[in-house]
């Protein structure tokens, strides 16, 4: 059983794509069977997991819609002997088998640090964040933490773009009208960055500005690869962690261990590092066939 939030913006769609990708790898393997479900709301996800448990799954790969609400059901799964892999958002309990996640703090922090250094400690910064929720808050706070040592940097606007291109476009259009001088824009993810770039182009202000998104969307990575003038770095928060998680679950069920590990079992906690994508290494992060 694989339970993840529904595709309601680019990154989650990417996660769905990677989940399907990983599942597809096993299509010739008769010993494993997958149930992929997506939810639009925590209680719906709980319902799905209940259904999966009733169905009698052996392993559960869960990207919780939200940590706390999914904790009881995840714990229940674990206690029923289901091999439980928690992805990305953790749960508020230690009762699971494996946890694999991106690093939200560094995701925001590195973006902030990059911008601060590029601006040499002085300038006007705009934040366009995602849907208000806990991981968004964590990232934004980390971003601000990184800017703390630079009193010369001012955050002149902080508005939600709801992880949507159109919304980010609209918000950026408005911000551009209000502020004649903007030195850097950080968007919560690369989808919104596309909207921002469009708004800048439309306003004819697509120069002398530092743009940073995040999560490694393929077109942004391609821009970096091709040496785009405004977008030069990106910070990963890879949706393909779900594929890794699925592989881990299958390996665990089959009793396999990780290559290079002297230990037999699958590691219990894996935090993926936030990697910096630059022109040099971009091609390693470019998955043209992926949807994100």
């Amino acid at each position, binding site marked *: 059983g694989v339970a993840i939030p529904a595709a309601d913006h680019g990154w989650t769609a990417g996660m769905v794509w990677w989940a399907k990708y990983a599942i597809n790898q096993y299509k010739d393997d008769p010993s494993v069977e997958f149930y992929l479900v997506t939810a639009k709301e925590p209680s719906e996800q709980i*319902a799905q997991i*209940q259904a999966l448990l009733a169905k009698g799954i052996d392993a559960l790969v869960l990207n919780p819609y*939200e940590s706390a609400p999914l904790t009881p059901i995840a714990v229940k799964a674990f206690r029923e002997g289901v091999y439980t892999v928690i992805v990305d958002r953790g749960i508020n309990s230690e009762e699971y088998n494996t946890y694999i996640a991106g690093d939200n703090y560094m995701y925001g922090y590195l973006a902030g640090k990059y911008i601060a250094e590029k601006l040499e400690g002085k300038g006007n910064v705009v934040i366009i964040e995602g849907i208000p929720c*806990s991981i968004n808050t964590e990232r934004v706070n980390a971003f601000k933490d990184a800017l703390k040592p630079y009193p010369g940097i001012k955050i002149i606007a902080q508005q939600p773009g709801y992880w949507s291109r159109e919304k980010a476009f609209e918000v950026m259009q408005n911000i551009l009208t209000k502020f004649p001088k903007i030195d850097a824009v950080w968007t919560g993810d690369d989808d919104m960055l596309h909207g921002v770039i469009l708004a800048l182009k439309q306003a004819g202000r697509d120069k002398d500005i530092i743009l940073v998104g995040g999560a490694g969307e393929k077109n942004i990575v391609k821009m970096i690869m091709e040496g785009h003038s405004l977008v030069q770095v990106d910070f990963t928060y890879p949706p393909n962690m779900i594929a890794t998680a699925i592989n881990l679950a299958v390996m665990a069920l089959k009793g396999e261990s990780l290559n290079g590990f002297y230990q037999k079992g699958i590691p219990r906690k894996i935090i993926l590092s936030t990697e910096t994508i630059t022109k040099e290494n971009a091609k390693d992060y470019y998955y043209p066939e992926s949807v994100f």
Partner: protein
Amino acid sequence: MRRDSIKKTGGRFAEIFSKYGIVIVLIGLVIVSGILSPSFLKLRNILNIFWQTSYVGIIAIGVTFVMIAGGIDLSVGSMVALLGAFAITTVNAVGDSYLGVFLAILATLGLSVGLGFATGVAITKGRIPAFVVTLGGMAIYRSLVLNFANGGVYMSNSMKYSSMGMSFVLGMPLPMLVFIGYALLAHIILNNTKFGRYIFAVGANETASFYSAINVDWVRTWTYVISGISVAISGILLSSMMGSVSSSSTGNGFELDAIAAAVIGGTSLSGGKGSIFGTFFGALILGVINNMLVMLNVAVYLQGMVKGLIIIGAVLLQNLSKE
């Protein structure tokens, strides 16, 4: 309904089919699912469906009152988060005791009555369309929940509170029992009390009700109070089951599901028509569809298609059964 008329034409069978069309559609769905996936019919899964349905189902019962009186309530989704969060915060403040849990439930119900009342007054006395007031409410409640938790989660510190929502009584999950009990109570209020009769009358013909010495505004307002209370019950059960409330996502989209359950069950958006019976089974149909999609392992991106087609088909079949 029209006993005399039907007796003469079709027979007993036609009558049953017309009144219980929705039940037959539900049974049909269950049979098909059971054939396609045997584990669908496990007792455990059936209980699960009831359990999962109960949160939206209880809200849908409240929404049915509002809709029969000719109104609409879009605020229930955000409100469930607000009231759930309020209950958790209150328990945390009062402390982990049965008394604390009891007080928190009482306070939450109290708040819900207040909110429902305010909504009703804005609609009837302020003469603002229900759509606008409750759309505003939806935004305002969500904003409040987000603001106090800073976008994060309300966590319950009380074991007593959290265990309540997960508890089983007589081998059945508590929410399921509450759902069934509440539906019965609501059915009686709607069909066997003065107030219930007034709700139908007001929704069907406001002017005639006014001329018939019914306090139309008062009846309308109370339907929103009932909707509020239903949301409170659902919010308490949901937040205690999860031990928490997510300020950003809990309850998202509940309004559409609740209205859909009512409409599938035969409640009219223009008022005057509807039943708790229909809503109850409408909610179950939605629950069965959701469960079935998982059980049959329907491809993620095709689920919407399947769901949409079944919902439309379910109502179409009911129509045909009335012929």
